[in-house]
């Protein structure tokens, strides 16, 4: 188990009989209390395929029913019920190729990170660009790993929407059409776009991408996080 930020933790699981997964898929976690009460939630797999081991990155929601258990209660050696992998649409694998545009809001970066890690491990030649929106520099999940991977096939652009550190020269506002144009790739490159985060974020960014001329069917969206109205 490893903390990513103050509210976010990555947890590794050894899953007997795991049949493998593709980047972007998720698992369903089910918890059972002693009185038989059960709660189920879905979590994107954060890790690239790696034998029997998977990693989930979980954001602790103060009023959550499952996430506080996973981040605060679970200790190494505990067992958990999970089911998956689930989902055949919001998936990237090397055969899909590039260029790839990944746009994440907060913990929406988790399935996108699985895609980046898969690309890092499996080679292939897809070019990837990640535009990651976070509240502040301390809230950026996978911050150091992304800095380490950025290079010839991966471009990472951050926008910090609530506060920026002293001397910050990056973006400091919500993702908009102008930012997407600067980060690229443009619609002429026909990128496969994966967009993940809270619903208002996904809604706004998808609209901006379509307004820039990206084909709607090349924009795959996954909306999650707390159930925002």
């Amino acid at each position, binding site marked *: 188990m490893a903390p990513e930020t103050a509210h976010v933790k990555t947890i590794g699981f050894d899953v007997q009989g795991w049949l493998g997964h593709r980047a972007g898929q998720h698992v*369903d976690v*089910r*918890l*059972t*209390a*002693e009185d038989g*009460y*059960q*709660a*189920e*939630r*879905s979590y994107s797999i954060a890790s690239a395929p790696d034998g029997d081991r998977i990693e989930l990155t979980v954001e602790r929601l103060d009023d959550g*029913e499952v996430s506080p*258990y996973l981040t605060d*209660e679970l200790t190494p050696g*505990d*067992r*958990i*019920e999970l089911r998956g992998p*689930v*989902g*055949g*649409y*919001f998936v990237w694998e090397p055969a899909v190729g590039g260029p790839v545009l990944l746009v994440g809001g907060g913990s929406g970066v988790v399935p996108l990170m699985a895609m980046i890690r898969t690309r890092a491990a499996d080679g292939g030649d897809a070019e990837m660009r990640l535009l990651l929106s976070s509240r502040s520099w301390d809230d950026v999940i996978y911050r150091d790993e992304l800095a380490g991977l950025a290079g010839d096939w991966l471009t990472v652009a951050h926008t910090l929407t609530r506060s920026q550190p002293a001397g910050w020269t990056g973006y400091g506002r919500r993702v908009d059409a102008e930012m997407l144009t600067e980060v690229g790739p443009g619609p002429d490159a026909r990128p496969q776009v994966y967009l993940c985060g809270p*619903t208002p974020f996904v*809604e706004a960014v*998808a*609209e901006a*991408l*379509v307004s820039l001329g990206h084909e*709607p*069917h090349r*924009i*795959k*969206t996954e*909306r*999650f996080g707390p*159930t*925002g*109205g």
Partner: protein
Amino acid sequence: MSFISRGFRGRPRSDADPSRLPPGQYLTTDYPVLSAGPTPHTPLDRWDFQIVGELAEPRRWTWDEFRALPSEEVVKDIHCVTKWSKFDTHWRGVSIDTLLDGVDTSAGYVVQYADGGYTTNLPLQDVTGGKAWVVYDSDGAPLAAEHGGPARMLVPHLYFWKSAKWVRGLRLQAEDEPGFWERNGYNNYGDPWREQRYWGD
């Protein structure tokens, strides 16, 4: 057979009637939005609704014609495969029975098709007999685009992916034809009471 998750207590049990909550679901008072792609926006003067396929004469209504059809208020519980359920959701729309009134068909299946390319499939008997509607008002106001407006299907006895947002028509078919999510890992039928979420359930 499930085991006990050490130390898990769960939320204090709410007053919600547990017999209304299918297995694995939790109650929400929010209104989450989930879809696979951007929200389509079809202007009403270009919108139409059609019934095509296995019937003698295809049917078509413009928006004005559709709004002139007999409609009803519907209050239903809805259940999303992503685990949230919402009780007593309010809608207004047209019953599929009204749209199919007088239609003679040998079709056993129906595919809902929608703007943006989404499809979902059902046995025909799951949209007839007072089980399904095309709705255009939600909570007394026009259905918002991100929730499926101007009109979406409402098939509340199944997981909500079986109720296509931005629906533009029904295709009556002799053969079943798995739709978008059905081809991407989700159950062909989707009964929340038997927890039919994924392939193999």
